[in-house]
């Protein structure tokens, strides 16, 4: 390929063996040592395949652009990475600064997995966000599928958000233009 060739480089699956190489960033954003000046909350859930089986060898990344300033002490401010666990579970402690843009997601989320030939972009919103109906992103999502992007508040104050790769619950994945 010459330097004049601007055809994009295509994607390949992350495969099953990313964990050792990706661990440094998992450690860098671990909830137990998170330094943030903003209030935090937990979004957690399970990543499911088309048979409803948990995907236990995936990687989930979350990007919180509006929280980067509050996390200036972190190695990667406003970033999270976690492998899914044996039950497909993931948990993300997110900084949610006061006065963030109305209708913005609490995190932009990227999903990587063995068997997923290209990573998938999605985003997560909170059901009790008063500005949800002002979200420019959700407004572009067919109403019937918006719920797949909204985390539900649990009795313990955490938010539950499952990611479905397929089925009638399939999470909306984005291509940003």
């Amino acid at each position: 390929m010459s330097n004049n060739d601007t055809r994009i480089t295509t994607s390949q699956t992350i495969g099953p063996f990313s964990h050792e190489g990706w661990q440094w960033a998992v450690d860098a954003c671990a909830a137990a040592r998170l330094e943030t000046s903003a209030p935090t909350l937990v979004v957690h859930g399970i990543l499911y395949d088309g048979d409803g089986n948990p995907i236990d060898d995936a990687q989930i990344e979350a990007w919180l652009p509006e929280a980067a300033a509050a996390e200036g002490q972190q190695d990667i401010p406003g970033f999270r990475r976690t492998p899914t666990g044996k039950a497909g579970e993931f948990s993300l402690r997110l900084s949610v600064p006061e006065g963030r843009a109305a209708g913005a997601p609490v995190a932009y989320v990227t999903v990587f997995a063995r068997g997923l030939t290209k990573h998938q972009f999605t985003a997560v919103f909170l059901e009790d966000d008063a500005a949800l109906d002002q979200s420019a992103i959700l407004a572009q999502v067919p109403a019937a599928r918006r719920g797949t992007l909204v985390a539900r508040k649990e009795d313990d104050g955490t938010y539950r958000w499952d990611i479905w790769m397929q089925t009638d619950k399939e999470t909306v994945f984005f291509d940003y233009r």
Partner: protein
Amino acid sequence: MKFDEVAPGVWPDLIHPAYKSTVKRGPLQPALRIEAPVPVSRNIAPAPRILLPHDADLTRRGEQAPLGEKIVVTGRVVDEDGKPVRNSLIEVWQANSAGRYWHQRDNHDAPLDPNFFGFGKMMTDDDGRYRFVSIKPGPYPWKNHDKAWRPAHIHFSLFGNVYAQRLVTQMYFPNDPLFAYDPIFNSIPDEAARRSLVSRFSLEHTVGEEMLGYEFDIVLRGRGATPFGL
């Protein structure tokens, strides 16, 4: 930046039955193209301290030199305008020379090398160039079908200059006889797109009698980068 629609056949098929685990894991709905100013204009900014000594020399992570064919891999990361993607994080990971990953779930009956763990990271420079030293990985069986062997490859994870440029891919080596038989490589319908993942041997980057050079240039999506910070 602007992100044009990707031409048909360039991305791998999300459902590619010959690669069995895609069947229940690939999304069935097409990705929804949306306007979202933040993902196409901003990105993570890792602190420089994340780079550790020898992160870009995978042969120097053990107490002794690892076994295998020492190589240097380099290339430029550019966007669709051909502009360099500067100061951008790249992660790499791979099997050792025997085709075995340093990973608890890899049960391939090939030896681990106590001096080779097979992962590293680096930043691109002001010209978008990256460079790392490693060992040529071996092919390995992966049980997808009878005699399923992966062509030798190095995994790449790129963060680009804006979030929407994120890419994970695999770099292959020239003339690998396994290309024709690999459902992961062939999940990409477009022949030129498949070829974009094959590095080329480079005498220019070969270092004396120490190691052979391979060149792998990468084009990330996106046009119209602003000069700001990029």
